């Protein structure tokens, strides 16, 4: 299946990040496995160590399996001033995970992100493609509950 994704792109090095995106987006666990890297490495003739370097350089890529829903809490100063550390604590206890980890049921992965560009509504987080602003601990319970219920 990784080979099929590769085949959609010309085998040039510039396509590396697009191919990696595609692989991550189509994977049910939103990550790029070692096996995937080996296929891309062979396709683009780019050594695996180099691809690993790229994967770990950009925070948007993951080399570990992730949950169905990805929570990315903004860790930039404006959000911090508005109490993002309390929100982080709330998320950690509610989901029983640390940053970078996935809940046991595979439903959520908790990550931190650089500025999400909506500082006016700090503290802010994204769950998948949706932005949630003006967060409070109550709002967190509500949002997580809703996503859990909806699944």
């Amino acid at each position: 299946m990784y080979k099929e994704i590769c085949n959609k792109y010309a085998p040039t090095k510039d396509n590396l990040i697009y191919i990696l995106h595609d692989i991550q987006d189509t994977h049910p666990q939103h990550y790029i496995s070692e096996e995937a890297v080996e296929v891309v490495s062979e396709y683009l003739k780019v050594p695996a160590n180099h691809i690993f370097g790229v994967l770990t350089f950009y925070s948007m890529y993951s080399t570990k399996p992730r949950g169905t829903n990805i929570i990315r809490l903004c860790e930039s100063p404006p959000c911090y001033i508005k109490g993002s550390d309390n929100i982080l604590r709330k998320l950690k206890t509610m989901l029983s995970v640390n940053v970078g980890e996935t809940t046991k049921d595979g439903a959520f992965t908790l990550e931190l992100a650089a500025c999400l560009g909506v500082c006016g509504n700090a503290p802010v987080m994204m769950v998948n493609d949706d932005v949630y602003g003006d967060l409070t601990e109550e709002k967190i319970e509500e949002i997580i509950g809703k996503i859990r219920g909806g699944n």
Partner: protein
Amino acid sequence: MAKTVNVWLDGHHVEVPDTMTIIEAADKYGVHIPRLCYHPDLPPTANCGVCVVEVSGNPTPKRACCTPVAEGMKITTNSNKLRSYRKTLTEMILSHHDVKCPTCSANNKCELQSLANNLGVNPDALPNIMPNTPIDDSSLSIVRDVTKCIACGRCVTVCNEVQTVYALTFSDRGIHAHIDTAFSNGIANSPCVNCGQCTVYCPTGALRERNDLDGVWEAILDPTKHVVVQEAPAIRVSLAEEFGMELGTVTAKKMYAALRKIGFDAIMDTNFTADLTILEEGTECVTKLKSGSKRPLITSCSPGWIKFMETYYPDLADCVSTAKSPMSMFGVLAKTYYTQEHGLDPANIVSVAIMPCTAKKFEAARPELRDSGYQDTDFVLTTREFIRMIKEAGIDFKEIKEEDADEGMSFYTGAGTIFGATGGVMEAAIRSAYTLVTGEELEAIDIMAVRGLKGVKEATIPVPGFGDLRVVVAHGLSNARIVMDKIREGLATTGESPWHFVEIMACPGGCVGGGGQPYGNNMAMRARRGEGLYKEDRNLPIRKSHHNPEVTRIYERFLGSPNSPLAVKLLHTHYFERSVNTGQIIKEATHKHH
């Protein structure tokens, strides 16, 4: 064309080519700019920021290692502002560093240690927030300790650009940036070929060889064991510099004396089996030439090169000489010929090799190298480990009285000794192959075209009765790639290799530049050590391997003739194909002939 520009270094006017960086210009004129990541042999990574200088017309300091000089530039290398900047940077590095210098393998050789010392840094200026990353000791050759890493990036440049092995990479970024192998699988599960070049260029103790000293001491101190030692050609020119003598001095006889004092039971020499290799490999080459084969013969003594070939060029494995390396030939003979001659039980022999090389540790452990019925070579120590051993034994190496090696597998010719420099195996082989083909002696035996540090060296030698013998020498694996790609292309297009005989060494400069050599092993030092070997060659009474009387003797008393069935059984080997991702064996690439 480079233009000459006028530059003022701390007020002194100098003229330098405009292709130079500020740090190169300063080094040329003896002005020392503190630095950490820059190394003169490597392209700058510009990662550390320690080399900052003030440049006229620029409000902020510039990094001297990556800023080119320009006409009229006024450079200040020392000011209070720069000093405080450098200090802070060094303090930040020390804040996530496991500072335990007295027990660190890099102690006294460490560039971070000396920088911190020179700058008068306060080690406790910042709280220590060292990440607790485990040591990667998965490899038989290389140990990686991220807690000593300053993320200078030299190893990444060396592994990817100089050696094109692609084992090491930067991982993460910013303050979390560190060196890793793909998917953190560890060196042993990467394409690493164990060349050790990363360990000689690492400015700190973050990359080093696996330490095998304990096992060797144990064997020496065990009265039931008979410990036989061999030393590679390059060792005899790499000790002097560490003991206050001139770089590149040949100290073979002091080396033997030190080994005897340490307690080894039999002091032999790898140079003997280097000569033997010439007979085995030379005969193989001549047989191939006479058969009219269009495929080349490629040398096999460098274990970093062999693993590289198995990983990236397994389709050409049949072109690589089946001859074992001189170390492995010695290993197998120590537990067969030597024990037979001396009435010893091979089970009690411990065979130790002192090598300029980290990859030899991997080679010694190869399961196929057990043709004596035992592991042929029990322990490999690098030059650095051997130096520690000399110091641990309290030997005053500079003053120790010269002694001879023990008789037998220690006698060597000038051809054997030049194995330690790039081009040396080729030169030694030509000196003997000429005779094997023509029955005559080659007169002009100094083959200058294959000497020196040029990355790829070609030569054509007219051989009566054969024609022009085309040879090529490459050292450093990026150069090996150039040669191998041309061979692959030649075979695919015209069906013919551009060369008959090919020498490849994994390390730039050959073994004198090996990954187990003393720290600070730069190209200029490698050249000096190489010159030391050529000088020894000139001064030795016999300079051709086929005139080594002990080689003649071993064929008469034991092996029969070169490439005889017994010689093939004991002295030749076969190769594998390996994964480019994990370095693990996929399948056999060639078969062992019995």
